[in-house]
């Protein structure tokens, strides 16, 4: 078995330049949670099926459990920690809070990032478009109704 050698990988993380020393076989999820301490990105199924680890890469939702850190070299990575500004939640985060779009909360970071990616591309999505955008994100608490309402609220500019 060969030993994986480490290299410096540089990317833009939540608006700031970030360098990490990682081997090619290290997943973005592990770099975020273990090396950088950004534990908002959740480890769910760990196999690309639940969406709890959804982050944005160059503004597009991607699964951190299927993405090698090496792939992020030279790109922009955004996690749930990057949405709030000056300690104030983003409009989408507030909508999840106000509309009770979160219960146990474990899926919420992934839901919010998938929804954020949708709203950047489509500021006024239909319910069908919201459902399609969140197809890969599993929630076992809410039944999804409140999540969809939260995203509609955020799209309308409320709360």
């Amino acid at each position: 078995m060969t030993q994986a050698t480490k290299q410096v990988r540089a990317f833009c993380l939540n608006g700031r330049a970030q360098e990490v020393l990682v081997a090619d076989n290290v997943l973005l999820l592990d770099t975020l949670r273990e090396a950088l301490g950004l534990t908002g990105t959740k480890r769910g199924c760990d196999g690309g099926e639940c969406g709890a680890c959804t982050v944005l890469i160059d503004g597009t939702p991607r699964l951190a459990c299927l993405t090698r850190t090496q792939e992020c070299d030279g790109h922009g990575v955004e996690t749930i920690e990057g949405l709030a500004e000056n300690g104030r939640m983003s409009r989408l985060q507030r909508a999840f809070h106000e509309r009770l779009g979160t219960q146990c909360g474990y899926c919420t970071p992934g839901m919010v990032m998938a929804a954020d990616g949708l709203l950047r591309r489509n500021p006024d999505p239909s319910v069908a478009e919201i459902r399609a955008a969140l197809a890969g994100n599993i929630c076992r608490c809410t039944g999804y109704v409140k999540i969809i309402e939260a995203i509609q609220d955020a799209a309308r500019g409320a709360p």
Partner: protein
Amino acid sequence: MELLPPFHVATPGSIAAAVAAGRHQEASRFIAGGTDLMVNLRHGLGDPAALIDLRGIPELRHVGTTGPDGLVIGAAVTLAELAEHPTVATRYPAIAAAATAVGAPAHRAAGTVGGNLCLDTRCIFYNRSAWWREANGFCLKYQGDTCHVAPTGKRCHAAFSGDLAPALLAHAAEIDIAGPDGLRRQPLAALYAEDGAAHLRLAAGEFLVRVIVAADPWPAAYAKARARGAIDFPLAGVAVALRRSGDDVDGLRVALTGTNARPFLLEGTEGLLGAPVSPAWLDRLGRLVQKQVSPMRTTLLAAQYRRRVAAALAQRLAATLGGAAVVGDAA
């Protein structure tokens, strides 16, 4: 889940460099989006010393129309890029539908055309953790010597589960393959073999470069049945391309996925030409499908259900494309 095995990743910038990398790295695997391979490697299904990432090769990233070649799709084009391409969305709706039927947006943003066409076969005895498979004595597909689906059989019955292949087969697509012996063009259908443990006819160091689809495609559609409606592999997936002359069908291709170790074109469809789509015609189509698919107990749902749903999907698509007012039922 387990950590990834140690490997290094090569990122060639040309087809020649990728071929050279494959030649120098005997224990290497080609990779693009990695949405399937990453999961399998973490399950201990393979231990490559190197991965060769093909996404940095410009020829593999191109999708578009080019004169007599019709539609050309690079193997590293993502499924999202393919589905959203204006020409594909308007003139090749079956291909766009098949690409959109794969996973969720986050999978389609990473997963590629080549990856979906070269997807590993799947089975409830194979897509498991290393300790689960070891406790079960492994299986014929990897590390073991018995197929738990058909213990008395001599081959692996894991099912091919890519969505894109049937849509491209229904359009009689061709592919370019690069490797140590140069570049060759062949029908997509010739890429596959009916063996779950060796379903790709690719020699060592060979990889898919592009897919070529003829101009003036026949009207076509794709549909799949799956256990989880939001995202899932197909229990059965069917693409139908149907051309009419007046009321009569004068061209028909039916391609299937999820039921066999390979995606394949239905044989014997010429017997259905020269007649309009009718309940009797749909009944004959359904029987043809049921006779040629061979689903085994590789998913949580019964094989007989997948056999019947494959036929029903083929009938439904053919009825719509053929302008029939009725939807047949082969059951």
